[in-house]
Each structure stands twice: as C-alpha cells, then as structure tokens.
C-alpha cells in the first residue's frame, strides 16, 4: 500500500527558500506569481493490507520523524 506524504512549513512560519525561489521566478518574467512555498515529498510503501492501520502508522511516522511539528505541517495521501 503506497502513500504520498507532503511536508511543508506551517502557514505562518517564514520560508526563506520559497521566498527566494518566488522572487527569482518573478525576475524571470512570471508576473502573475503570487507566492511559492517549498516542502518535502515522501513516497512510502507499506507491506500492510489494513488501510486504516497503515494510514495511522504513516501518520505516526510523520509525527515522530518526517515532519518537525514545531514548524512543519504534513499531508498524507493514499496513492494508487
């Protein structure tokens, strides 16, 4: 069972990388750009048939390791 996890900085936390990438894209001529936020992406493959159980394990992984919850949020999507 596969999951896609996206980790991004929380809404109100400064994202220096996103800020510079956004500014550069604007300088490259993309005038209608609003904002860029940068994050991390994980593909997680679980050897587990019970989807509820797998999902809760992935959530635990996010909370304990993948995301630094002091500054980051995460989103879990089940991939097909």
């Amino acid at each position, binding site marked *: 069972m596969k999951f896609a996890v996206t980790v991004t900085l929380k809404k109100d936390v400064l994202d220096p990388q996103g800020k510079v*990438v956004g500014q*550069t894209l604007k300088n490259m001529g993309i005038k209608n750009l609003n904002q860029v936020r940068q994050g991390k992406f994980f593909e997680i493959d679980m050897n587990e048939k019970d989807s509820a159980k797998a999902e809760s394990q992935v959530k635990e992984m996010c909370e304990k390791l993948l995301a630094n919850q002091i500054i980051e949020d995460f989103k879990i999507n089940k991939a097909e």
Partner: protein
Amino acid sequence: MKSSVIVFPGSNCDRDVAVALERLQFKNSMVWHKETELPKSDLIVVPGGFSYGDYLRSGAIAAKSNILSEVISAGKKGALVLGICNGFQILIECGLLQGALLRNSGLKFISKDILVKVQSNKNKFFNKYKSDEILKLNIAHNEGNYFTNKKHLEELENNELIPIKYCDEKGNINLKSNPNGSINNIAGIFNKNKNILGMMPHPERMADKILSGEDGLGLFLSLMN
C-alpha cells in the same frame, strides 16, 4: 593580468579571492551580478559562498543571473574561468561544466584542511606544480560530492580533465582519503578545452603563510605563466 570576480548576493569568498589575486598584482574588478557586461579580463572567478542562500539547489539561482550569460559566452570563447566551491556549483548549474555536486556522503557541512594530489600539470591552472605533488587546501561545503555518468567519467579520466583528487599524506587516493563521497575522489574538473576549471577546495585560503599555508598560491601563479 586582468581579473574579474563575480559577486552574487550571498557570495562570501569574493573578498578572499580578490585579496589573493591583488597580492599577485592582478588588476582585479568586482562585478555585481546585475551587470550586463563583463570588464575585459584574462581570468573570470566565480567565488565561493552561499549565493542566494544556497536555496533550492546550490548555485541554481545564481546560474540564472544577468552576468552569468556573459560568463558563459566568454567561457565558450576560451576565456579562463575558475569556479571555486559555490562557484563550481554555479558553473555546473549553468552548463559550463558537466556532472552534479550532491550532498556530502556524511550528510554534514564539512570544513577542514584536506590533501589533494595533482594529477596533471599540463594546463593553464596547475603548470607551476609538479605532477603528483600533494597540496594542503581547505574545503568548506555541504554539497561537494561530485557525480557524473560513466561515459563522462571516462572522458574526464582519459583526457587529463581531472587536475586534482583527494588523497592522504602518502598520496593514496582511496575511500579513506575521500572527505565527501566524490566519485573517483574528484576534487576538481575541467571542461574539454581546459579553460574552465571548477574545484571544491579553496586555493585562496592557502595563499598566506601566517594563516594555514601557501599551497594554493601556485594556482594563481600558474595562471600568470
């Protein structure tokens, strides 16, 4: 000799390299990244630092700046171009050099004195050194782990396009003397015509006896030859 040192927001070895060049009587100009024209120069240096904070990928954003298109066309016409550390990363991101610089194998920033062995002195940059000479230089980087495909690696090895490799005190080039995981212990590479050099170690940091040593001076002296 005339030299130009390119300055990006976040460059921080620009002054260091200018000091080394000026000590050897290079007539040096500092060129701000927003400029659209390069002063006439025999040597263009893309210095170390954290251009644009190293955000996104080291060197990626600097490679899109105004002045870089001038550097690219000068390099293609045969001008001498030296990229040090972040400068090496920028030369790769803009396509003047091939390959990639990955995160250090130890996953940490490394700053320390290391040894490299001169592989070839038949070029503009190392002619003042002896072949097989061991030099003490300093590295300071997060992404210095050079990687390239098999075909390009063969091309580099077969055409003396790798002037320096990491080694130990006895000159052994092996896994133990490799600080960052670079393929074949590569510390720097040339383009095909050997007029463009990218290297992770900082020669400008070893150009003053009272500091850590003078092993880097030979590179600048070679360029004057």
